[in-house]
């Protein structure tokens, strides 16, 4: 009963109420203005202004903007810190809180929830695809489900990246928090209303464009399309705000002695991802906003019927949407590089090369976007250059593979769940990596581009580059976050169901693609001979789903176990394992000092960090 009461007065509830009120306000304001001027009925402008208002309403009611509004009227409210007064501690997780670890957990739980929703969409249309013909979905329903699966999973991955970056980066560099804690809370809370908008889009008619939202279909689609475009656009504010904090944390809040090349390697991945989020998000934002304006105000940018250029949308869209896969993958690969030395008890091979390869992938990633447009009818002269740059991505990626193999070489490897997921991630990322150049090469891209091959390739890079490393990270840092060890047996069961399941799914998707199965299509010709493969993929998808349920159960059940007795179960040299679990409010007892290399396992060299330096005078 008490619990329900706390939920009813939580930031989420208040925010959603504000969202509804402000949406109605914006929508009816525009409708009234249009009625007064005698314009004919068109919901698009009202929905646009309503959606933008709704985000403001959410933030206002949830309490995200309170301190800033007080600043404007000349007050100087102190930063709220520590657990809430007069309420149980857990309620800080459902209210606006400025602590980077609380925000990291909020990102993580929201991300997992959204991940489950996106997975449910996938299972639904996967079941539909297991037989040719239409079983229980309409064409429209199929289109909406696969489109929503795409954007919802992307949002969930971005939230997962936010979870790791927010929780780990300040902790790893020795900071007490991020430099702009209120902005940090803003970047989490501003991500919620766009999720609501996208889910609402499914209810009011859905949309057919996939997550890419190409015009001209996006300009002509029903009102659900408008809500989807707006939700996608507004989510960008979260990415940009969060990236500013991460970059500034690395720039300003590193512990004494922590030079850039002595940071834990994950920080390099998070930093490179943040640099992409900071910049590229703007171009996809503008491509979506222009689409929304084209729908709302009869302006012309992309509709060729009125002199626009649909290809312009694709250029702006992919300028973000190619690099954004590195936003997912670079933190994921960072986790792999971070965990391998711990479980191999060996130093990370070629630290500097790995660190710089993250930056390298981020930079080259900006020069390859048009490989998504080889079959779009763009200028022929652009094709070869973009093919060449695309193939260049293989170089920094290869550096990482080489370094991982060399790190494992002759290591004293132990196979706990996090390590299993790291190894599984490498195997799956290898599948995704090898199938990439085939798509980057124009002649082989032509027949494969709109086939299921690309579905297989993309899911392999996403699972190998992010999802599996993320599971590894959750298992690895679960004891740090909760002070309790997860259930190892269930963890291993999760692994042995999910990774082989994924292999089957991946190879199934690619072979269906070669056989001629097209992507984004609700139905297929039984003469293709892929029905057996489709059944196999569907079964694999359900095995994966079961393993995820086991994973979620493990997280919840293990939180009730007895506290750990061993403060450093992985015998890690990293600073976050030298402080208490769960981590104290401001992370460390004292500012530590970096005195050694981060990954000098088994060398007998001094520790990485010295937790008790001589007291600094005046602090």
């Amino acid at each position, binding site marked *: 009963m008490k619990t329900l009461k706390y939920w009813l007065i939580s930031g989420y509830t208040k925010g959603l109420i504000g969202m509804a009120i402000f949406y109605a306000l914006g929508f009816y304001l525009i409708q009234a203005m249009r009625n007064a001027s005698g314009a004919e009925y068109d919901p698009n402008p009202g929905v646009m202004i309503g959606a933008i208002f709704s985000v403001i309403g959410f933030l206002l009611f949830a309490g995200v903007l309170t301190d800033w509004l007080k600043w*404007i009227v*000349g007050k100087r409210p102190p930063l709220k810190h520590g657990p809430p007064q007069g309420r149980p501690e857990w309620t800080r997780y459902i209210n606006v809180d400025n602590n980077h670890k609380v925000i990291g957990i909020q990102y993580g739980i929201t991300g997992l929830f959204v991940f489950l929703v996106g997975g449910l969409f996938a299972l639904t249309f996967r079941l539909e695809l297991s037989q040719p013909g239409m079983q229980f979905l309409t064409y429209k329903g199929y289109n909406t489900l696969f489109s929503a699966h795409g954007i919802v999973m992307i949002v969930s991955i971005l939230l997962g990246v936010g979870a790791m970056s927010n929780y780990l980066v300040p902790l790893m560099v020795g900071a007490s*928090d991020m430099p702009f804690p209120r902005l940090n809370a803003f970047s989490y809370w501003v991500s919620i209303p766009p999720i609501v908008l996208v889910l609402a889009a499914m209810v009011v008619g859905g949309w057919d464009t996939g997550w890419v939202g190409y015009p001209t279909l996006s300009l002509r689609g029903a009102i659900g399309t408008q809500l989807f475009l707006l939700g996608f656009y507004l989510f960008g504010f979260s990415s940009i705000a969060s990236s500013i904090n991460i970059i500034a944390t690395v720039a300003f809040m590193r512990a004494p002695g922590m030079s850039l090349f002595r940071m834990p390697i994950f920080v390099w991945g998070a930093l490179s991802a943040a640099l992409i989020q900071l910049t590229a998000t703007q171009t996809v934002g503008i491509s979506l906003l222009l689409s929304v304006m084209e729908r709302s105000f009869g302006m012309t940018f992309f509709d060729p019927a009125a002199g626009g250029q649909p290809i312009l949308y694709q250029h702006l869209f992919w300028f973000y949407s190619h690099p954004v896969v590195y936003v997912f993958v670079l933190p994921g690969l960072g986790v792999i590089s971070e965990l391998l030395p711990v479980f191999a008890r060996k130093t990370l091979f070629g630290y500097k090369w790995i660190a710089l390869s993250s930056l390298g992938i981020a930079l080259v990633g900006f020069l390859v976007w048009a490989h998504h447009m080889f079959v779009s009818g763009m200028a022929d002269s652009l094709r070869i250059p973009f093919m060449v740059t695309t193939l260049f991505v293989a170089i920094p990626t290869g550096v990482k593979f080489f370094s991982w193999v060399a790190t494992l070489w002759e290591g004293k490897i132990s196979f706990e769940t996090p390590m299993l997921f790291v190894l599984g991630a490498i195997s799956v990322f290898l599948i995704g990596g090898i199938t990439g150049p085939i798509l980057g090469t124009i002649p082989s891209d032509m027949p494969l581009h709109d086939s299921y091959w690309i579905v297989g390739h993309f899911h392999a890079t996403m699972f190998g580059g992010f999802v599996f490393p993320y599971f590894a990270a959750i298992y690895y840092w679960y004891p740090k976050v909760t002070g309790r060890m997860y259930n190892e047996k269930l963890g291993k069961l999760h692994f042995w169901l999910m990774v082989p399941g994924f292999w089957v799914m991946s190879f199934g998707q690619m072979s269906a693609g070669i056989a001629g199965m097209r992507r984004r299509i609700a139905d297929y010709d039984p003469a293709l001979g892929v029905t057996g493969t489709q059944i196999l993929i569907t079964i694999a998808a359900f095995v994966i789903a079961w393993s995820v349920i086991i994973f979620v159960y493990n997280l919840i059940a293990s939180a009730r176990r007895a506290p750990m007795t061993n403060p450093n179960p992985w015998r890690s040299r990293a600073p976050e394992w030298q402080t208490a679990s769960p981590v104290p409010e401001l992370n460390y007892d004292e500012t530590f000092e970096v005195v050694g290399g981060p990954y000098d396992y088994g060398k007998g060299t001094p520790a990485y960090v010295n937790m008790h330096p001589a007291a600094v005078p005046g602090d």
Partner: protein
Amino acid sequence: MSVGTVEDHAEHHGVELSPEQQVKANRFGLWLFFISEIFLFTALLVARFFLWGNTRPELNQVVGLIATSVLLISSFFVYRGETAIEHGDKKRFMSNFLWAALFGTLFFIGVVVLEWNIFGLSGEIAGIEIFGTLKPTDGVFGGVFFAMTGIHALHVLSGILLLLAAWYNGRKNNYSATDNWGVEGTALYWHYVDVVWVFFYPALYLIGTAV
């Protein structure tokens, strides 16, 4: 925790920022935001050159030139206001920021009332029609012109609100010669929005042949 009490300092913690470092971090964070916004404005310029190529719509050159000058003058007032508060001259800071907000508003009105002509007026001064005729629905000319001026005008509007907030905080004695991040940040933002217009103005009004 820039505003720490004795108890706060007894608390255990990792690296924290001193007030001076916090201002440096604020400045850095604002510049990161500017870098981010460069991609927004560049994308709009890309759209302009992609869709207009070497042409542009017929626009009122006199209004464009005057609006641009008004905006640049506002930046000059902001600069004077910021210098004033750095010397501890609160009065001069406040009057200059108010002037800047006024000129910013004039620019905003120039765009919305004259160029956009949202009230659908017409009229001449010295034989020159001062109200715009281009509409947002006029193909790619209208679309790009209204998108670029509109997104820029939103930045001007938020800048005006920041200038007024800084002015109000000045009235409340929240700034001194050494503690004035609010003024500095606002000034930086205003100059930035101005510089963006320096790129937008020629792209919209000068480059290409009018058709």
